[in-house]
């Protein structure tokens, strides 16, 4: 029953009222980003907000419902992608539970972990449902990779690993900035407000920043040689591991 307790803890009336607002934030910012023609989605800022202050289950529900609403109100082709949004919410909440949403470098790591999850979850959907090439612009990269002789699965996976980190790390930073702008007294009404308690940045920020940059560079190099995909993921694991271990030791 521990699981049920943990699920219940995420939801109070503030959560139920925050979720619709968070979904509306997802949609409206998503649309503003399209208007500004920025090369990112930024359509899960609200999901991340809920995940941090209410918890992983509330985050997962927000992500799922966000996709359902997008489908109900704007474009039904959003429906099949709901597992991606679900995992974005869940993993963000899970990271925040572990204290990974308290300062800049930790938020960067959260964004990165979320990106890897989103990439992994969206790959089977785009391969099995859409045959690998979806309506998104990044499909051009997939198409290119296919022409270099790579198989469908690794082409799609490589594309996603390339596209997701930039988007999810920016999203995490924006969510973090919003949380910083809200008063502690206001946040205290949410079930897991403690996850957003700010912490000071330290030298690790630079290390993690450089680490993530290196991983991104390797993932770009992956376009030339598929071996880099696995090297990149290996380095990512090392960077995240070292970051977490060093904070454990302190």
């Amino acid at each position, binding site marked *: 029953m521990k699981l049920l307790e943990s699920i219940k803890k995420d939801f109070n*009336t503030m959560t139920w009222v925050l979720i619709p607002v968070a979904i509306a934030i997802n949609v409206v910012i998503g649309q503003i980003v399209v208007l500004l023609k920025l090369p990112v989605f930024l359509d899960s800022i609200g999901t991340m907000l809920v995940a941090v202050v209410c918890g992983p289950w509330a985050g997962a529900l927000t992500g799922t419902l966000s996709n359902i609403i997008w489908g109900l109100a704007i474009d039904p082709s959003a429906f099949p992608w709901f597992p991606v949004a679900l995992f974005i919410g869940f993993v963000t909440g899970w990271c925040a539970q572990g204290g990974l949403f308290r300062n800049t470098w930790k938020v960067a790591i959260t964004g990165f972990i979320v990106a890897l999850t989103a990439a992994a979850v969206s790959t089977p959907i785009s391969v099995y449902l859409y045959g690998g090439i979806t309506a998104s612009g990044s499909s051009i990269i997939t198409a290119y990779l296919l022409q270099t002789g790579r198989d469908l699965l690794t082409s799609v996976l490589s594309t996603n690993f390339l596209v997701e980190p930039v988007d999810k790390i920016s999203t995490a930073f924006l969510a973090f900035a919003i949380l910083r702008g809200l008063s*502690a007294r206001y946040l205290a009404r949410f079930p897991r407000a403690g996850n957003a308690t700010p912490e000071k940045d330290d030298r690790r920020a630079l290390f993690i920043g450089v680490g993530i940059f290196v991983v991104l560079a390797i993932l770009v190099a992956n376009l030339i040689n598929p071996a880099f995909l696995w090297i990149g993921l290996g380095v990512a694991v090392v960077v995240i591991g070292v970051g977490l271990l060093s904070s454990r030791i302190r």
Partner: protein
Amino acid sequence: MVIVDLQHVTYRYPMTEQSALEDVSLHIEEGEFVAVIGPNGAGKSTLCYTVAGFIPHFFKGELEGTVEVAGVESRQASLEQRVRSVGLVFQNPFNQISGAKYTVFEEIAFGLENLGVSRAEMPARVEQVMALTGITDLAERSPYALSGGQQQRVALASILVMEPKVLVLDEPTSQLDPVGTREVFGVIRNMALRGMTVLMVEHKLEWVAAFADRVIALENGRILAEGTPAEVLTDERLLEHHFGFSRYTLAAREGRKEALWPPDRRLPVTLDEAETGFREGLRRP
């Protein structure tokens, strides 16, 4: 019979140092109309939340003293009990729309659904409060597509339909235009005439004088003055503490300096009192 009974209530919101209420005791008789006045940050909304049980249930924080409504200590009361004994309506009409419903009729029935009132009972109760609040013709409209005054009357109806014993109004007209203000005060007057127990926070002192049996002046979380409107609303301490006076009281106060207001007459709080007083003052040699 005392229906609201606060004894030595002191309250602090979480993550704050200062008490929002400090040793407040308040008794309201059944059928009484009590108005609360005070500057911003005096603790007026906090008092409303305390009477309605949102403190401590929703806001958490530290509550000392006892709060009893309709004989039940609010710390022990379930949400259903609290909702059935106190109805709360506040400033912003827009934020009081539940968002759960597409029509005014269903919006009003929302509380009944949550309380598990049988479906057969709903139409009569909803129609009755719609008539009472004058919104019968809005039944099929979207609650979002109404004017502020209409929305606030929907909010009132949504609370009244649950038949609370006490109505708590936290500046119900502060965000309305003059037309909306008059509409909403019309409904409140109706409720008062029907013997409803009301606790109302209000800035518009003319209305306070017109409605209230008793006025409480709050400052810095403490009760500064308490009594009939005539006593409290002309209390010189109100001016010292920047509460202000109503325009009738102020006019007479100025008039007294110019010998236009009879020196033995107390300052007026309503238009009628002001009119009689000035007539008398002008007739004197």
